[in-house]
């Protein structure tokens, strides 16, 4: 069992948790992920490592409540336990001195981008960060991002904060005037697709971090496979970072929708049970 030591709501939908998991903290690096399972009924959910503290033996995860599992996870509190916390998985980000780089983060993608931007900055790169979200309420860690960036651009889709734009707009402006060595982009697949299409026009190498359907996270199920120019790869063992210019994005986007219907069923059932619990403590049993 792995204890939740701290929980913070970064906004209405995005939660941060610090988990006691010394076996993962010992080896964790920026760019890697963990597999989390809440209890014996739970799924194995891949979540990016947002931060870690080797001496304290803790790992920080940040997640957006979307489906049943992340809503359930979000309902837990400090002192609760998780059944599974396995990792670190995947390859760490390749950090070196590139020159001027851009880190693009969308929504909850800010969490995995932060340690990468921090490491790039520490390695002597000039870091320009572009952070985007649908609205102001979904933004977090602006100050943290600012401390590891030479320049920070914040935008929202609805203009409720920062610049009213999608991340590709400022990205295009910068690429048009500056010599950029490398771009990192983490966020929704559709955002990473458009970032990659844009950077390809400018011939700037682009690393994206994929979050695909995954069961074990160790290379066993193959559910996370993604089509690249040179064949299929497994996100869990070959990634999670890939060259954004080589990915068949349409195949990736369609594979992410495989279990949408089941997610709706599980999510609806979860909310139903939660509401019953709130209105009548015994009513929840009827559902089982």
């Amino acid at each position: 069992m792995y204890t939740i030591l701290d929980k913070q709501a970064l906004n209405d939908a995005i939660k941060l948790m610090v988990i006691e998991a010394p076996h993962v903290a010992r080896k964790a690096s920026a760019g890697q992920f963990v597999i989390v399972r809440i209890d014996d009924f739970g799924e194995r959910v891949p979540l990016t490592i947002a931060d870690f503290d080797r001496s304290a033996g803790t790992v920080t995860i940040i997640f957006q409540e979307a489906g049943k599992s992340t809503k359930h996870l979000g309902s837990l509190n400090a002192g609760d336990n998780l059944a599974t916390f396995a990792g670190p998985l995947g390859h760490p980000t390749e950090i070196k001195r590139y020159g001027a780089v851009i880190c693009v983060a969308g929504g909850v993608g800010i969490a995995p981008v932060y340690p990468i931007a921090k490491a790039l900055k520490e390695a002597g790169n000039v870091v320009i960060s572009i952070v985007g979200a649908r609205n102001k309420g979904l933004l977090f860690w602006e100050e943290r991002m600012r401390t590891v960036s030479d320049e920070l651009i914040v935008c929202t889709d609805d203009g409720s904060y920062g610049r009213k734009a999608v991340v590709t707009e400022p990205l295009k402006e910068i690429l048009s005037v500056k010599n950029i060595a490398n771009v990192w982009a983490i966020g929704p697949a559709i955002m990473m697709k458009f970032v990659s299409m844009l950077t390809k026009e400018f011939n700037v190498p682009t690393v994206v971090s994929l979050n695909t359907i995954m069961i074990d996270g160790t290379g066993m199920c193959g559910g996370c496979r993604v089509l690249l120019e040179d064949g299929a790869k497994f996100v869990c063992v070959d990634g999670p970072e890939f060259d954004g210019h080589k990915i068949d994005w349409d195949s990736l986007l369609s594979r992410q929708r495989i279990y949408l219907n089941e997610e709706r069923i599980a999510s609806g059932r979860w909310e139903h049970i939660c509401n019953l619990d709130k209105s009548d403590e015994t009513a929840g049993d009827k559902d089982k």
Partner: protein
Amino acid sequence: MTKQERMKIPRQEMPLQDTLIRRGNFEEVSLGLPEDAAVKEAERCLQCKKPKCVEGCPVGVLIPQFIKALREGDINEAVRVMKIKNNLPAVCGRVCPQENQCEGNCILGKTGEPLAIGRLERYIGDYELSRRTCPMVKPHDTGKKVAVVGSGPAGIACAVDLGREGHKVTIFESLHSAGGVLIYGIPEFRLPKPVVHSEIDYAVQCLGIEIKTDHIIGRTVTLDELLGEYDAVFIGTGAGLPNFMKIPGINYSGVMSANEFLTRINLMKAYRFPEYDTPVRIGGRVAVIGAGNVAMDSARCAVRLQKSMGMESGEVHVIYRRSRDEVPARLEEFHHAEEEGIIFDFLTSPVEIFGDINGNVTGIKCIRMKLGDADASGRKKPVPLANSEFTIDVDTVIMALGTSPNPVVFTNNGNLRRTNEGTVVADNETGRTSRERLWAGGDVVTGSATVISAMGAGKRAAADIHRFLMEGM
């Protein structure tokens, strides 16, 4: 009883769950011999002076001795004799290909039906699990520490034998549950998970073995670190990396590896979604590619899912490029699959998977094959027949084409010799690898094989590790 009298006793049939009912549930198909039938079957044994059956068993179970004890009514002695060589009889009694091993060698099989050794083994195993007689004891503490990587059949067999010698054994498992392929691969209706948990927990408790789950060797801890901390390390990580056919369309939604399909069902209990959170997608028309045990398990799971979801008119095809005579699956599983209504498309090979505009599978294009001359494996090589392409309409494709060793365990491990196929080079008798104090066995060495052969390799490695630890060589 005379030899003639023994030979007149008919082979005792295994009671089975009714075909039509079992197609709609995941409960065990074979129900186990009742006591009187088990004793009657044991009476059939001729107690050969030179038992061929034992030669056919990869772990050398003392078959005539346990059967003698069983028919003399001393079942505790039968358990004791069994456990000398086999740590997981309830598992092996269910999943071993007995027809090719012990029973395949049985002298009774020359003129009639061989002794049902597998059924008797299962009887002994089940008896022990319900009674907990525990004939295994930890004799003394040698002060030596061994790390076992992987808790499947090879790892468990190795760990248990080392535990019995008094070494301190720690098993590292990447998943949240011990058992490896016994847990994620083999379905409940063939091997109930409580049987696996019970056999493993029991062996582990008797011998004080520690199991660390959620530890991915190569990521959480490296082999080098294990070698630094332990006196010896055994790798029994199996062959878990699924192979996909290199044909167009494999990334359409609805195409999955048998590993993914079976892991969702077995490890994550997806057949009980939404009570359990993990779903599994199955359509009304399923194609399983391959005809090994994993293909049979996948096809039979697919039938059960279809029926339990109300798809009474569902179809499950097994597509195999060779003929009925070459089916690599256990005969019993093949028969059970046929009984359950699975359609076999023999001498057929997929060439392309079709999908719709949303990326969902709609069909599979196949080509007819004929059998030519024998290939390197000794089997007749399938050759495509020109202009024989046809399409089967399907919405789910499950690839059961064998697996390769998972490379993650070998991360940053330069001088361990491996083959081009990714398997570890290890001595067949001892399991020794090219690295000092590092042993390997099971599917990670041989590629996909059977539970019992992996157990055999684990046991041989354990014997060699013990020798090394005690004698330093």
